[in-house]
Structures are given as C-alpha cells and as structure tokens.
C-alpha cells in the first residue's frame, strides 16, 4: 500500500489493490466459532476475557453459527462420534474460512491413544494453524490469531488448498 500525503495540506491519496484492501478489512474482523469440547475451551474463555483481550486483534465476536464465522477454533478432544458433527460445521461455514487446531488433543489425539478419539482433526478437515500445549495458554491463541492474520495479509495459500496431506 503506497500512501502519498501532499505537503501543501491538500487531500492525499493512497494506492492499493482491491485484494489487499479486502484482506486488510478481513484480518481485523475475524469471527471465530469456538468448538470447545474440553479444557481448551476454558483457555479460550480466558483469551476472550478482559485480561488477555482477544478483541485487540479484532477476533472477539464469537459466532456460534457457522454461517457467520470465519475461523473455526477447535478446542478440545474430538472423538469419532463427534467427527461428523465437526465436519458438518466446517462444511457449513462460508468461504473464505480458516481452521485453528488448539491443543494436542485436536491436533494429534494427544494422550488419548485409544479406540474412541480421532487422532488429529486434520484427518477430516484442513488445518491452517496448530497450537501446541495441553491446554495452550491464552498467548497461544493470540499467536494463532496473529498467524491467521498473516496468512490473510500475505495471501499465503490456505491449508484447504493443499489438503489432504499425502
């Protein structure tokens, strides 16, 4: 984005592309859908609360309708019974959409190496950002949101474009 301010006080002008203008608006108005199934959901509440204040990054308007959400924040253990529900919610979200896999349970099954837990949600949907931790602290969530903002700003390919991972 190029900005030129006239020295004589006359109105200046800005040069940009429509894509970067849209991306600039998008990155500061991410509406997350928190799919909280375990203790990670508590940390999401902490991140959204006053102390960590995720609204500083424009991502505080939590939408529990997938039709209105931009980011799917999967916070918690996903078992096989829940997997079709999660996939349905992902399919219901409008493009463009991003997915954050929060915590080791959502990312890899974590220590639930058993007959009932899905071993990572990237088996059923593309994931843009993984947050490590059990549970991650709110800084991790903020970092993930900033990573999503960087993806939007730079126009980097989303995970959906290189999924499934072979």
């Amino acid at each position, binding site marked *: 984005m190029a900005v030129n301010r006239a020295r004589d006080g006359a109105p200046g002008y800005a040069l940009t592309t429509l894509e970067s203008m849209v991306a600039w608006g998008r990155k500061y108005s991410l509406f997350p859908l928190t799919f909280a199934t375990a203790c990670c959901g508590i940390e999401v509440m902490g991140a959204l609360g006053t102390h960590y204040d995720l609204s500083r990054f424009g991502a505080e308007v939590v939408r529990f309708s997938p039709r209105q959400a931009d980011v799917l924040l999967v916070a918690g253990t996903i078992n*096989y019974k829940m*997997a079709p529900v999660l996939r349905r919610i992902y399919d219901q979200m409008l493009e463009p959409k991003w997915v954050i896999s929060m915590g080791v349970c959502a990312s890899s099954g974590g220590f639930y190496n058993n007959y*009932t837990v899905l071993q990572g949600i990237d088996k059923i949907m593309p994931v843009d950002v993984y947050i490590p931790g059990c549970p991650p602290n709110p800084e991790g969530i903020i970092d993930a949101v900033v990573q999503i903002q960087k993806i939007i700003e730079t126009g980097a390919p989303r995970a959906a474009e290189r999924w499934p991972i072979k």
Partner: protein
Amino acid sequence: MGLVLEKLAARFGPEIAATHSNFGDDTALVRRERIVEILTFLRDDPGLLFDFAMDLTGVDYLGEEPRFEVVYHLYSLRMNHRVRIKVRLHEDDPVIDSAVSVWSGINWYEREAYDMYGIVFRGHPNLTRILMYEGFQGHPLRKDYPKAKRQPTIGPEE
C-alpha cells in the same frame, strides 16, 4: 456363608456353581439358564428384597473358558444387604436372558455390556449400542481388541 447365599442355595442348589464371601461380600457364580428366575427370586423373596440393581457389567477373561462373565451387583434398600451374582458365558455363544423384566433400570447397563463386550441379552427391548455409535466396528473392551485399531472416518482415503 451369609444368609443371602444360604437362601439362594436352598432354593436354586443345582444352579449355583460356586459361592464365596471374601471380605464379607457374598458372591454366587450361577448358571445362565435360569438367571431370570434367580434374579426374580432375589427381588421378591420377603427375606431378601433386592430392590436395587446397582450395576451390571461384563468381564473378559481372554484365554479362559468360558471367556466372558456377566456380573450383577444387587442391593436391598430395605434389608441393607448386598449380593454379587456372576454368570460365565462361552465365547461362541455369549447370550444370556435379559433382566429388564426384573429391574427396568438395568436396561442401559445391559446395553453397555453389549456395546463394550458383545454380550447379547436375549429379550432386551432395545439392544443397541449406548456409548459407541452405530457404525463402530468391534467391541472395544474385549481384550483382543487391538490397541492401535482405528475406526473409519469421514475424511479422504489415506
């Protein structure tokens, strides 16, 4: 031998394979053929009055024969005594009569035992999986269920 086991042995002597009262817990290992009669007797006898079926569970003794075991934990609120009834089932025929007609509250316990061990309760009004979903393959608490076995998911083919 406690009072409960004495009454049970007097009434159903040939049906009872073994009894013990370790640590004061009366336990009877019975044959499966007349299990509903035995449970009805335990519920209705004026000196027993087991009105509360606290638990029913399955056990998998892999490598033994009979392989499976169904365990009933019964309690009498009025008499304040307990008894444990066990039934062994063979692997090739893990079928036992349902006790839902005796205590309706045992309905979900039998479904759980069916779900986890594949024990079939004959005459159960709705013998479907209760914890796992319909498409789940296998019975996960069986000892020969592979630890690393994964269920098919809705994702792309690997």
